[in-house]
């Protein structure tokens, strides 16, 4: 049992404001046009605080935290 979660983005809603990269630099990078790059979407428990901050801070509400898919 882990409380890990998964970060996902609504790519259509995303307007490339870059707030997520500022609030959650551990997981979110930006490409040359300012759109998020997330090489590893899993969010372990100790990063949940930053992740929630980013989700709440996104001005277009494009970020979401989902339950992590079960490990296979």
């Amino acid at each position: 049992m882990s409380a890990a979660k998964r970060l996902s983005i609504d790519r259509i809603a995303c307007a490339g404001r870059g707030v997520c990269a500022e609030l959650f630099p551990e997981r979110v990078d930006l490409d040359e046009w300012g759109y998020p790059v997330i090489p590893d979407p899993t969010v372990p428990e100790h990063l949940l605080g930053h992740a929630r901050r980013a989700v709440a801070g996104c001005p277009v509400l494009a970020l979401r935290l989902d339950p992590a898919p079960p490990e296979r």
Partner: protein
Amino acid sequence: MTLQSEASATHSAAPQPPGGRLLSGWFATGVPADLDQHLLRYGPAPLPGSKETVTALITAAEEAGLTGRGGASFPTGRKLRTVARARGTAVVVANGMESEPASLKDEVLLHVAPHLVLDGAQLAAAAVGADVIHLCLPRTRAAQRSTLALAAAERRREHLDRIPVQVHALPHHYVSSEETSLVNWINTGNARPLATPPRPFEKGVEGRPTLIDNVETLAHLALIARYGAAWFRTAGTPDAPGTVLVTASGAVHTPGVYEMPLGTPVGRILDTAGGAIAPIGAVLVGGFFGSWLPIEQAVRTAFSKSGLAAAGAGPGAGVIAALPHAACGLAETARILGYLAAQSARQCGPCQFGLPAVAEDFAQLAWGGLDRTGFDRLHRRIGLLPGRGACRHPDGAARLAATALQTFTDDVRQHFHRGPCPAAGTHGTLTVPTAPGPLQEGWQ
């Protein structure tokens, strides 16, 4: 004459489809099958009327191992079962959009055997408990739209069909045929992809569970319902059963649509299309969102999901295009990437900005001078496309670009050291549409 003797097999105890599969009627008669001919050949579709027969139909699709022929090769039986189980009255959408410019198979199938597709749609609708069928066709095929609407009306008059069919004509862009675009267009009149989840099987047309299948997939289902899973598996391989419609184009003697057993080596498909008209260097497999394979590798690769996956490719919409050795693969790819970039729905940043940037870099590689820095940038930009759009349009473009750089390494070296090759300047082998794109035509 063999076709005739095979036709007599219908009268034997174990039901057999007369003379083969999807295109057999056409090869036997040379004319599109109207309703009378269709009924003569196949009889009416065995629509399930009870819970048991519905279950039997879904089980047959599963046991047949039928997979989607629209691009992703997803197991059709599993999709049927999922939608059948979902809460609420379902909707069926038949995808006849065929936005892939190198594909002709859906147009050909709908032309020669429209009633097999309509049978399949009725069977699928009965299986999932749908009360309406939407058949989506591109606006550019107006004649086909009216033919299909008349055919559906005739079936209804003859009391062959239980479920009403609506035939639609949608804007013809590369991504207006993606499944969420169809849902969006039916719901709101906008043929651009939607963010997922929810996926259409959960919440699609009118918020109802929606089964979306390619028209060829439905036609196969119509035959499986009649002749069974075991019969279906008599063609193809155990892990890729059945036949597939393949559009072969490029430098072959007789380009066209061929029905092949899945798992046939690509080389044999090229032979079936008359063989090469010039020495071939590479083959584009899957379509514009497919993969380039060097000819030596392509010829022995089995045309199936698993066979092609081993080579880093996929069957996509059943496309193979042969590129002559003398042609410039970089210029061909640059043209296709330019087209794909212009086809973006411009909803997602990486697709709106990243894809045109990749196309631009690639054009410089093909026709201008792309320096080392530019080349590294191109690699980085290609790597940043996959998984970063609402739909998989950027993923497909990235696959095309990445496999081109692998397959045409010699050309890349040439272009670096000596600039564009002479072949880069010619008009190219693969036909890339020049029709105005979505920016001019819109999405309504």
